[in-house]
């Protein structure tokens, strides 16, 4: 049996800091241009064995402690990466300082990568060798890279505020670049412009928990706060799918409505014409002849078509089951007025009206009718149809089907609004007027 042999682990090369004499470790396999003494934070030239001082930090910087200790190794994005450098950078906007962390990762076969962290949001950043198309130094237009469009998010002057470890460039505290970010979640393209060059990189949003797992860090990642510029929306790409499902369900509902429209019997069980006058003597109420309702319990439509003209009438109805003595009591106002005034011609109401009586059981029925009106006369037709579809249910169901996709869309829009409120192009302008005038 062949014994398992662990691959060799590269040991850091230790030198002495020319400023404080403390040990300075080098892990960058000779690629590092700058190394920072962890004891006195002096920035040293790592390109020669002499470790010349590049920058002495006179006043003690407010020392930051990296969440990923330098020298830690983690497996992510298809490689093993060692954290060899750490810096913080900041932009000042409207008097407010926004500071983020950058970890320099090194793999001797793959080169350098970065991890950035702001408010618990992490990005794994890869320097780009190819330039995005249509890059614009003013940073106001979208850029194109690898088939994706990236919208400009923000730009500003970033200043290095703290450095520790090794860097493949001559890092200095106070170093300034003009940085622009372009987003297409979960990606972000960043440009850093100095007087000599433009460097582009692409970051991919990584949950903090994945960083903690990759580097086997103790505890758990700090909770992310707010919405980050390239944080994937939890429902962003699902909104279209939700609406597609809504369309499918609406089609099913429409199919059901059509099926009921076709297969409902809509059987006319009674039809007759009558006349009524307010001046007629005697009892106005009367009962119709018997009619039979057959089949399953179904709705019964009672429709009245009148000859009203600038008048109203009220019908008291009672649908009485001849056999059981059970009755449905209901009434219907019918009014129709029209005329002309200074606004032109107008009309109001209708000569026709109908009532849908629910779930009327089969049996022998008659209808008691009692018309009322103040003055005038009318003729009217009564039509009773059994098993008539009630489309109210379909409208109600369509409205209820609509609620989840609408809420989904609102949540997705709200997420995007939160994202872009932090950009140079906020969708809603917030006035800074504090009312002190």
């Amino acid at each position: 049996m062949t014994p398992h042999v662990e691959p060799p682990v590269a040991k850091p090369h230790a030198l002495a800091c020319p400023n404080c004499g403390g040990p300075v470790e080098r892990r960058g396999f000779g690629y590092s241009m700058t190394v920072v003494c962890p004891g006195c934070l002096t920035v040293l030239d790592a390109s020669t064995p002499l470790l010349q001082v590049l920058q002495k930090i006179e006043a003690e910087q407010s020392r930051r402690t990296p969440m990923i200790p330098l020298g830690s190794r983690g497996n992510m994005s298809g490689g093993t990466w060692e954290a060899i450098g750490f810096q913080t950078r900041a932009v000042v906007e409207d008097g407010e300082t926004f500071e983020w962390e950058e970890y320099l990762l090194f793999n001797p076969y793959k080169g350098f990568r970065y991890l950035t962290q702001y408010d618990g949001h992490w990005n794994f950043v890869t320097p780009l060798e190819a330039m995005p198309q249509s890059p614009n130094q003013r940073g106001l237009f979208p850029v194109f890279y690898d088939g994706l469009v990236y919208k400009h998010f923000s730009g500003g002057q970033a200043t290095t505020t703290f450095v520790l470890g090794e860097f493949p460039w001559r890092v200095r505290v106070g170093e300034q670049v003009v940085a622009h970010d372009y987003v297409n979640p979960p990606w972000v393209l960043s440009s850093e412009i100095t007087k000599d060059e433009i460097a582009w990189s692409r970051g991919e949003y990584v949950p903090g928990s994945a960083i903690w797992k990759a580097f086997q860090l103790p505890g758990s990642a700090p909770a992310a706060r707010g919405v980050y510029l390239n944080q994937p929306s939890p429902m962003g790409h699902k909104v279209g799918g939700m609406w597609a499902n809504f369309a499918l369900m609406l089609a099913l509902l429409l199919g059901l409505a059509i099926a009921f429209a076709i297969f409902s019997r809509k059987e006319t069980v009674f039809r007759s014409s009558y006349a009524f006058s307010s001046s007629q003597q005697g009892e106005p109420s009367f009962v119709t002849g018997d009619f039979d309702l057959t089949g399953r319990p179904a709705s019964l439509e009672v429709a009245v078509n009148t000859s009203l003209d600038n008048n109203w009438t009220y019908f008291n109805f009672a649908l009485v089951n001849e056999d059981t003595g059970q009755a449905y009591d209901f009434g219907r106002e019918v009014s129709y007025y029209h005329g002309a005034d200074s606004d032109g011609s107008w009309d109001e109401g209708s000569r026709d009206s109908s009532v849908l009586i629910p779930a009327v059981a089969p049996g022998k029925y008659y209808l008691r009718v009692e018309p009322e009106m103040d003055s005038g006369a009318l003729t009217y037709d009564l039509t009773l149809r059994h098993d008539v579809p009630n489309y109210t249910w379909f409208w109600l169901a369509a409205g209820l089907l609509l609620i989840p996709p609408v809420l989904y869309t609102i949540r997705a829009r709200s997420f995007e609004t939160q994202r872009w409120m932090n950009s140079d192009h906020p969708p809603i302008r917030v006035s800074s007027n504090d009312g002190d005038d």
Partner: protein
Amino acid sequence: MRFPGYLIYSMLLLTGTTWAEFRGWTLDRPNQVNNVPKTVRDNPGAYRAVYGFYPRYVGGK
């Protein structure tokens, strides 16, 4: 189906709609009166309707 919750919700709605439609239910509920006397057929004026199903309104501009 990427939205099983919505699928279940939709199916419940469609089933409910089908059932309500099949049973002939409506949102309106007319008053129901039991034991209407047989004499109503011969004397419809003796029947007193129970109002309340629809409000009465006299229109006109």
